[in-house]
Structure formats: structure tokens, C-alpha cells
């Protein structure tokens, strides 16, 4: 693809050649059959935990109106496997590798940030402070501004790679959390992870997800995410990565106009395996059509 337009964006010290990257947990090496990984703004493998863990009970996904609930849990082979297998698998591509980290405590987050955040092939860290599946009743670090601040500042001390805080949308005041993450030293904010959700099969009266609750993704949540991107952009100067419900180039552009500098695409790849690169092309077509030479002219360009 010829880069007619400037789509380069920065997150801290990291320059992405374009703003489109996969969302953690919805991307795998096998997708190379469908798309050219070198075309991605970045590569974001599934969140990794320190120790291997099995993931959640089945069923792990269910469909909802214009969306899906997942409760994979962080099925993970642990940090050692990640260092030995996952990074080598992805470091060969042109696109920078952003490692997504999940942990059970601030210390564990810091420990993993120190290992991965000093690895030569890891270009940035995404701290998944929002995963609603890991803790009882959906609590997560990203639900509390103090926890968020504590966690990010600890991680900040152990690495100088760009730190992206992946916020949870399951909060009263996303601005407060964004401010805390920025104060803690984040270089970018991912807005956002999934909405905590639940679905019940009325025939069996059982939850449709083995783990009872899970995270809602897909176009159903996009209006909530767009709102949060806009709100966050009002109080933070950090680059925002918009994530949640993007299905096509227009959806991505919508988030950029709301205030995002980049986007992540998850669920769409399940429906359209070429979604990531399709979306990038569609964004370029949009820029072409509207005579926009630089993506920065679009970022936060909402007209109120």
C-alpha cells in the first residue's frame, strides 16, 4: 500500500507508521494468513501474566446484539514462554511490538514491566489495568484513581519505554482515571477495555458465559467508547488509543475525530479477518476524499 497521506502518529517516544493496530486478545500469529503484519501500526499480542494460568470456564464467548461477550480470562503460558516464543515470533516484523501486561498486584506489574520494558524487541508496554475477568465481581486497578496512579508510577520507575494504560470503561468518571494515569507517568491511554456484561440463556437459566460475567465488545459499545475518548481528550494531553467496536474505516475515523491518535481493532477481525488492513485502507480513502494530508489534522477535530 502506498502511503499517500501522513498517517504517522506518536505515543511517547514511539512512532507508529500508521494508527491501526490489533487489540490485545483478538490477534494471533495465525492471522498472518489473512493480513500482512508489516502493514500494522503495531503488533499487540494477548496480555501476558507472570505465571502460566489456564483461563476461564467454557463457554468463553457468546454473541449479543451487535456485540459479543468474552471471558477468556488471561489464558497464558507465562512470562518465560512469552520471552522465549511470543517475542521471537513477532520481533521479525517491521511493526513495533507492544507487549500487553496483566498482573494481580502492583508489584507483579512492576516486575513484568521491568523485564519486558527492557527487552530489546519490546517497543512499548500496554498495562492492562482493566481486565474485568480476573478479579471477583469485576474489580480492576483501573477502577480507582489511586490504584491507577500507584501502578503506573511503579511501572514508570522500571522502564523508559512508552507506557500505555489500558483503561476500563466500567467507571463513573473516566476523566479522573485518565488524569491519574497521566500523573503516574503514562505516555498514552487506551480507551478502553470491555464493558462488564452478562447474558442468560432463558431455556436453561444458566449464564451464557462459563465465568458468569465477561467483557462486552463490538459495535454495541462504540457510542460509549467514543464518548469516553472525547471526555478523556478534554482533560489529558496524552495520545489516546481508541478501542471498542471499530468495524470499518469510518468507525476508526470517528474515534480519531473524537480525540484518539490511534485505534485498536479486536472483534472486527473475527468477522472479517482482513479488518485491520481494510480499516487502514478505508481511513486513507477517507483522508483522500476529504483532502486531509496529515492524520493530525483529524485528531480531535470534532466540531462542537
Amino acid at each position, binding site marked *: 500500500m502506498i502511503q499517500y497521506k501522513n498517517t504517522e502518529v506518536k505515543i511517547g517516544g514511539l512512532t507508529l507508521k500508521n494508527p491501526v493496530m490489533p487489540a490485545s486478545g483478538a490477534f494471533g500469529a495465525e492471522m498472518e*494468513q489473512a493480513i500482512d503484519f508489516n502493514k500494522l501500526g503495531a503488533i499487540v499480542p494477548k496480555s501476558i501474566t507472570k505465571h502460566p494460568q489456564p483461563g476461564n470456564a467454557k463457554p468463553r464467548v457468546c454473541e449479543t446484539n*451487535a456485540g459479543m461477550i468474552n471471558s477468556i480470562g488471561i489464558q497464558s503460558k507465562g512470562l518465560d514462554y512469552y520471552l522465549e516464543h511470543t517475542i521471537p515470533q513477532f520481533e521479525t516484523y517491521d511493526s513495533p511490538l507492544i507487549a500487553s501486561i496483566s498482573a494481580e498486584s502492583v508489584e507483579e506489574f512492576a516486575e513484568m514491566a521491568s523485564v519486558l520494558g527492557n527487552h530489546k524487541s519490546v517497543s512499548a508496554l500496554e498495562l492492562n489495568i482493566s481486565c474485568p475477568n480476573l478479579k471477583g465481581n469485576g474489580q480492576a486497578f483501573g477502577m480507582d484513581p489511586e490504584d491507577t496512579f500507584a501502578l503506573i508510577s511503579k511501572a514508570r520507575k522500571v522502564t523508559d519505554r512508552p507506557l500505555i494504560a489500558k483503561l476500563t470503561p466500567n467507571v463513573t468518571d473516566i476523566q479522573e482515571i485518565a488524569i491519574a494515569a497521566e500523573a503516574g507517568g503514562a505516555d498514552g491511554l487506551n480507551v478502553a477495555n470491555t464493558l462488564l456484561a452478562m447474558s442468560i440463556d432463558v431455556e436453561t437459566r444458566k449464564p451464557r458465559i462459563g465465568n458468569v460475567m465477561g467483557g462486552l465488545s463490538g459495535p454495541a459499545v462504540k457510542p460509549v467508547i467514543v464518548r469516553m475518548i472525547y471526555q478523556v481528550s478534554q482533560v489529558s494531553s496524552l495520545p489516546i488509543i481508541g478501542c471498542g467496536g471499530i468495524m470499518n474505516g469510518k468507525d476508526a475515523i470517528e474515534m480519531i475525530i473524537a480525540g484518539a491518535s490511534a485505534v485498536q481493532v479486536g472483534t472486527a477481525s*473475527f468477522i472479517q479477518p482482513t479488518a485491520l488492513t481494510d480499516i487502514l485502507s478505508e481511513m486513507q480513502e477517507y483522508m483522500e476524499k476529504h483532502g486531509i494530508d496529515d492524520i493530525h489534522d483529524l485528531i480531535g477535530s470534532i466540531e462542537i
Partner: protein
Amino acid sequence: MKQYEAPVLFNRQVSERYWHIAIDTSMMHEAVEPGQFFHVRCADVDSPFLRRPLSVYQIHENTIEFLYLVKGKGTTEMTRIREGETLDVLGPLGKGFELYKQSETVLLVARGVGIATLAAVAQAAFIQGSRCVAVLSARTNEDLLAAEYLEDFGAEVHKVTEEDGTSDVGNVRDIIETDIMARHTIDSIYTCGSRRLSKLSQSISSTFGIPGEIALEEHMGCAMGACFACVCDIREADTLKSVRVCIDGPVFPLNKVVIE
């Protein structure tokens, strides 16, 4: 694996609950194996949202056919597709059945839509010169649609149904152990479509030392190995290993699978 907009050759109801759809796959250059599946977009609007996995029922030179049970939103939408329209399919996906070349007689144990999956095995067995004996189980006789198709490939077909009160596991075991095995030396077993019949097949496989394979079904997200929605456990040496049905399967060695 690729995504195709395959022209629909026909899409017709074949019994109360089953439909049969054929697509033109002349643009597809990959070989398709029995047991492999496609991830199908049932309608070209957002509803249903996710794709649906369907395993191949019949594989021809330039055509692939699916047999599907109308179950919920996705398969209901599929019935609206007309000849001449296209079907958005992603595939072929997964690891199909391995037919042991030396098998003289193959036992197929299938229930419900599992019959569709094993029909492709019967076809392949026929081509390589193996003989098939099949026990097909369903709610009603009407639902045993693939029976004739199997017979066309020279399979000996035993039908059991709830309708006839013949589908309990005990009876199926009897049919296999006292009738079929008295007359045939079974070299391999293939099963699909029922937890209870899978356990029975496992037990026969281990009791008589007959190797076999099973095709599993799990709810899927991506069907490309990325999301870990479709995991199941298989026994490897003494430990359990988590595998993904969509990419490590859907076909697994019968004796390794942990059937919950």
C-alpha cells in the same frame, strides 16, 4: 485459509429441521479435507454478529456442500439465502480427519449434525477403497438425511432414533459389539455429534484397541486460533494440555480427548 464470496448453487430444506446448501468453490485453490470447516457469515447485515462454523458435508471438484440444522438466529438467517447469491465463507479451517491408509473397515458413529461431518469421511473412505459401517443416531428418521448419501458410498448403515426408541447408548453399544463387530473387523473409529456416543466410541476404542478420531464442537470467536474461545483439554502423557478446537482440531485422536 482465505475468505471467499462463494456463489450459492442451491440452498434447500431437506427435512423439518435441516437445510442443505452448496457453494461454487472453483476460485478456491486449497484442498479441503473431511473434518475441516468453514466459518460462515450467515447474512450480510450485522445480525447475526458472529460467523458460524460449519464442517464440510460433501466435497466435490468445484463445489462444497454443507448440511445444517436450523438452530438459532444464524442458521435461520442462512435459510433466506437464494441460489445465485453469494455466501461469505472463511476457510478451509482446522485439521481434518486422517484416514489410516491401511484401514479396511471404518466405523462411523455419528449423531445429529455430526452425521454431516462424517459423511465427508465416508466419501473419502470410499475413494481410498475402505469399507464403512455407520451407526447414525437422530431424533427422528426424517433427520437421518445423510443415510442414503452414505449408502451411495457403499456404507452399511444402522439407524437409531428417539422416534423408534432405539437411540439409547446401550442399544448402540449392542449394535456395534454384537452385530457389527461379529461381522466386521473394525480398523478405525470416527465419531462426531454426541457426548454420550463419543464416550461409547472411546470405550470401544480402548477396549478393543482400535484407533480413532473425533470431531469436536466448541463455541468460536475467531476460528483462526487467535482468541482462545474454543479450547478443550487433551491428555498428553500424564498431563492435560489445552488445545484450540478451531486450529489444533476440530479433529483429535479419540483416546486423547477429555469428554466432560
